[in-house]
Structures are given as C-alpha cells and as structure tokens.
C-alpha cells in the first residue's frame, strides 16, 4: 500500500466511510505499528473539533439507573488478570450520578489515566441484609471502604406520609448509631458520608422511620424497618 493510499484509508476510517473490513484491517495494523497508530490518532484529532459542535443535551431522566443496571449485568472481559469488582464499579458510578455529563466523561478519562490496570483489587465490601421483625429480608446494604453505602430495597416499604426512611450504622458497637442519610424518595439509593472508619464485619446497619427531614435528635427515634449485621462477602 502506498503512503498516499494509506493516508486515504486512515481518513476514510476516521470519517466513517470505510468498510468494517477496512476498519478492522487498519486497527490491526495500528496495533502492531506505533508510528501508524500515531498517524491514525493525528487524523482523529484533525476532525475532533467537529465533535464539539454538537449541541450539548441534558441527560434524560433515569439514564444513570439504566446504565447502572447494565453495568451490573455487563460481562467482565475474561482476559485481564486483575479482578474487577462490580460492587466497587457500581459504587463509583453512583458517586458520579448527578454529575454533569461532561464531568462524567472526564471521570472516565481519569479512571483510565489513573491506571485502571494498575489498580489494586479493592478490599471486599461489607454486605448486610436487613431483616424486619418477621425475619423477612427488606433491604440489601453494600458498603465500600470509604463508607459509600448502596441500599437496595427488596420490597416497597410502607412509609406513612410525613415520615422518611433513615439509614443508620454503628461504627463502634458500644457507641451511638450514626446517620448515613435519608432515603428521601422512598427508593433504593446510594449514600455517601465522610469521616467514618471503614465498615467492618458484624457492624450494625438499620433503617428506621423518622419524621420528614430526618430524626430531630440525630439518633433513631422511630420504628425499625429492618436491621442486620454486616458480613464479609466471599469473593
């Protein structure tokens, strides 16, 4: 292939005019030839300013939930040697929820650059099943090392009007419960809190019904919807 026709192939791949076979061929060649990969990247950069001319759109409602569901079921590629923890991914994703779309792209970028492949597999999360007074499982609580806590309600609890679900934990078994936050929408949610020690096995988690806005005393006052002690998951 002449240099000139190679340049044309590169341009047509970047524009989207090349056939699938040509795209695959060029990708293979670029994978084996850093100089060619650099040419391909330069060609992409030439047209990249056009990406910025698209009108930015707001993220539709429910977008992150749908994405999160898909990541939960997404297959992890078998090849990489490192362990990718889905729970950690979900927690990460949830932290980003609500961030501007561009910021998410930037976060993805950071996740890439920060060396995804070098990342030490995260310590196992603590998982707690909360049971109600009848012994039925009402919620699943997954806590990351930094106390990002994902609460998945397993059934729709009856929350009287003027009441809200509040999530608590006892970092120190002998100490007072600490509020992790409110499930203001009455739905599954991920809560973040700073300044607590990493959750440990046997740590107590519970959800209580509190007056709207949360417990006025900052301690549980209402009936317990579900309570349980944390377990180290076997991963």
């Amino acid at each position, binding site marked *: 292939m002449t240099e*000139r026709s190679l*340049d*044309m192939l590169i*341009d*047509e791949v*970047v*524009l*989207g*005019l090349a056939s699938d076979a040509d*795209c695959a061929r060029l990708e293979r060649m670029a994978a084996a030839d*850093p100089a060619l*990969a*650099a040419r391909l*990247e330069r060609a*992409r*950069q*030439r*047209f*990249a*300013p*056009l*990406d*910025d*001319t*698209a*009108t*930015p*759109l707001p*993220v*539709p409602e429910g*977008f992150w939930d*749908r*994405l999160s569901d*898909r*990541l939960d079921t*997404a*297959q*992890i*590629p078998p090849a*990489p040697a*490192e362990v990718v923890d889905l729970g950690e*991914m979900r927690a990460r994703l949830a932290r980003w929820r609500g961030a501007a*779309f561009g910021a998410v*792209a930037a976060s*993805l*970028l950071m*996740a*890439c*650059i920060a060396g*995804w*492949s070098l990342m030490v597999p995260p310590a196992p999360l603590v998982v707690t099943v909360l049971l109600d007074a009848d012994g039925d499982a009402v919620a699943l609580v997954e806590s990351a090392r930094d106390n990002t806590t994902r609460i998945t309600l397993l059934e729709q609890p009856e929350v009287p009007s003027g009441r809200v679900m509040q999530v608590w934990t006892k970092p120190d078994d002998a100490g007072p419960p600490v509020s992790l936050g409110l499930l203001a929408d009455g739905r599954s949610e991920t809560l973040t809190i700073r300044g607590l020690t990493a959750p440990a096995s046997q740590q107590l988690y519970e959800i209580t019904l509190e007056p709207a806005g949360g417990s006025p005393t900052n301690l549980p006052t209402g009936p317990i919807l579900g309570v349980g002690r944390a377990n180290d998951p076997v991963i």
Partner: protein
Amino acid sequence: MLGVARRMLRRSDLAEDAVQDALVLIWRRAAQFDPGRGSARGWIYTILRNRCLTMLRQEAREVSTDAADLDTTPLPEVLAQAHGGLEDATGLRQCLDRLDAPTRDAILASYVMGHSHGEIAGRLDSPLGTVKARMRRGLIKLRECLS
C-alpha cells in the same frame, strides 16, 4: 456525547442507547486504553462514533413510535451548524473553507452525520464514483492544508 450521538442518529432514544452502549464498552475496555497512544477524550469519542455508525448501518431499524424522539432539523442546517460551530481560528475551519461547498458538505455529512458514500451520492444525485473521487480529492487537500 449525547449531542454527537443524536446528531448522527437523528433520534434521541437511539442516541441514549448509543451512549449507554459506548459507556459500557468504555468500562469494559478501560484496561486496553493506552494514554501513550492518544487522548482519552479522542478514544471515548471514537468508541461512541463507531457505535453510532454500526447502528446507522444496521438494516433493520425499529421504528420509533414517539415523534418527540425525532430530530427533524433539516440536513443543510445540521451541516451549517457544525461548520459554523468550528472556531474561525481553528485549522480545520480554515482548511474546510478552502474546499468547494459540495465537497465540504460531503465531508461534513460523513463525519457529523455518519453518511456513507452511497447516501451522499443519492442526496446530491451524482454518480457514486464521482462523489468518491471528489471526496478523496477534498480529503487530500484538507490533509495537505492541515499538515
């Protein structure tokens, strides 16, 4: 990302699918990303664009029932917006301005809207070979101008 996808797919529901597909792919392939080979932003947009192109080329496309999903902006307007959205000072803008209008529009239609040679030829009512040759000459000029 959504804006780029909707401009190509002309439907907001498909655009969301495309961005979701792309984000899942990005998660899965994060380990393959090599910062030494280019910017992450470029890598992310390449994955998104490829996903959109695949969706565009798929023959069987479910028909949207919701008119609100449709992007009905006329094609010349979409191209003019993309062209006009480029800052005057950028090399790409200056070099595109040196091309004749049909060639420039053909190149913009391929990158911005994912149109194939065949679609561009159909729209211009020109023979496929002529369109291909004209676009190739345009791309050579563009490359020389930008290098």
